[in-house]
């Protein structure tokens, strides 16, 4: 009887997800292995043999790696600073970091179009200062995408790291210092290793997020395609649904491989074992 009640509570949600998410995704993945009823890997071979596709994949990976590294390097010190503040100031800075995160990605990417455009804020400032003679071509390049993505994901890594660093016992730092470690050594030997789990979760979120982001590359990348805009192009503009499904499957595979690897790394590096 109790079991029946449990099923009744869970079943509607499960059915809904199965019908509208699990089946569509599973069928999309399965469909890539069949053409006209027989098993084939042609879609994948086609993908792997075409230098244009590979270049898009390569650009996407490059952009995502650079974005992730930049977010770690910029986010880690900022998060450390925030985690050390008193509750009031910390609350304010956390709120200021969360606000952009909740703001529409269209709005955030559009703001960079104003800044990075040919006649944008950056170029007009640099020109009037006499630092450059011709406007820089930044908008519609991979650099613009990276800037937009760093802007999109930096708050995510900051708040994740603050959440972890808050829980590090401050006495550990004092202990390290009283045992003769310099501030920096104590930071490196205590804070950094204890932040590793947060760093890994944050990096997964940023890396997977950049790898699959659509709005930012669509607005800031111009003709430069990444894998997500390429999927959209194949599905909607070119109407090549088989290819689009192959790209979708590759995106799912990369996402799960990254999450799996990072999780493995996390258990390995976790100082608590």
């Amino acid at each position, binding site marked *: 009887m109790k079991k029946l009640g449990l099923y*009744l*509570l*869970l079943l*509607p*949600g*499960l059915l*809904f*997800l199965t019908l*509208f*998410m699990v*089946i*569509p*995704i599973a*069928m*999309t993945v399965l469909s890539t292995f069949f053409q006209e009823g027989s098993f084939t890997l042609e879609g994948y071979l086609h993908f792997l043999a075409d230098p244009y596709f590979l270049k898009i994949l390569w650009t996407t990976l490059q952009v995502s790696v650079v974005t992730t590294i930049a977010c770690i390097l910029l986010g880690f*010190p*900022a998060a450390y*600073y925030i985690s050390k503040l008193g509750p009031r100031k910390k*609350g304010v*800075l*956390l*709120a*200021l*970091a969360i*606000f*952009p995160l*909740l*703001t*529409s990605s*269209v*709005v*955030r990417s*559009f*703001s960079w179009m*104003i*800044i990075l455009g040919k006649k944008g*804020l950056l170029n*007009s400032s640099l020109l009037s200062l006499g630092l450059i003679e011709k406007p820089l071509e930044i908008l519609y390049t991979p650099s613009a995408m990276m800037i937009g993505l760093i*802007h999109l994901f*930096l*708050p995510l890594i*900051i*708040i994740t790291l*603050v*959440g972890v660093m808050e829980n590090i016992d401050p006495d550990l730092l004092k202990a390290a210092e009283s045992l003769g470690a310099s*501030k920096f050594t104590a930071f490196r030997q205590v804070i950094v290793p204890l932040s590793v789990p947060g760093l890994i979760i944050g990096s997964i*979120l940023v890396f997977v997020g950049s790898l*699959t982001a*659509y*709005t930012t590359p669509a*607005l800031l990348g111009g003709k430069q395609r990444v894998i*997500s805009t390429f999927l959209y192009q194949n*599905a*909607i503009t070119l109407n090549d649904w088989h290819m*689009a*499904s192959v790209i*979708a499957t590759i*995106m799912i595979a990369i*996402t799960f491989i990254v*999450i799996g690897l990072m999780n493995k790394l996390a258990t390995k590096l976790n100082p608590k074992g």
Partner: protein
Amino acid sequence: MREKNRGLALFTFLIFLFLLGPLLIISVTSFEPGTVLKFPPQGFSLRWYENIFEVEMFMETFKTSMIVSLAGNLLALALGIPAAYALSRFQFKGKSLLNGVFISPVLIPGIVMGFAMLKYVIITYQLPIYAGLLVGHTVLMLPFIIRVIASSLSNFDFAIEEASLSLGAGRLETFFKVVLPNIRSGIIAAVLIAFLESFNNVDISVFMTGPGVSTLPIQMLTYVENYFDPTIAAISVLLMIITAIFMFIIERLMGLSYFTKR
């Protein structure tokens, strides 16, 4: 030591300048009186705010976005509250697997989900585009609803529920009169967080457009491709105001720790 702290403070200040500066710039440029976005603006005017209400497509897509986000939210609540309750209240075999299934929509790349839904929900199941949007946004919101409400339930003392049951109230009555009122703020926060996720969504909505049907963010994307006047900046400001209000309410209801916990 002071020195290093000051360096770190300056660094953090610059990071926040990078994060918030662009949003400030977009806000300022929305008051530009001319037809081209400029920074600094050449004067002060509200004409682009008026323009939002004059462009029919913005009003229509805003309405669609509202309906989809609100109706999807209700549907996600109807599916999500019972699931969150079952997952927090009972111990059973396969619980962590089910937990994973309910959270999985956030793990699948949005653009992949949108495409798969176009392929099966719209084409194979032959749902109208409007219904497809609704279904897609419900799937999108479900994990947020379940996560926030489950975390709210984890602070709920189920002994109160037992007490109500032993005093003779029925299971359903107890749920509505005892459990729900106790997690009310969690539910409201869940609704707001899910609403923002849905209202701002591009990845799914971009595949679910058809004759006369589209959402506001998609309309904004299309507009930006064709025009570079300050209308989008003006809409952005309005969206940011809504976001700020929502965030303030969420903070009041359950603090900001939901965002820092992973």
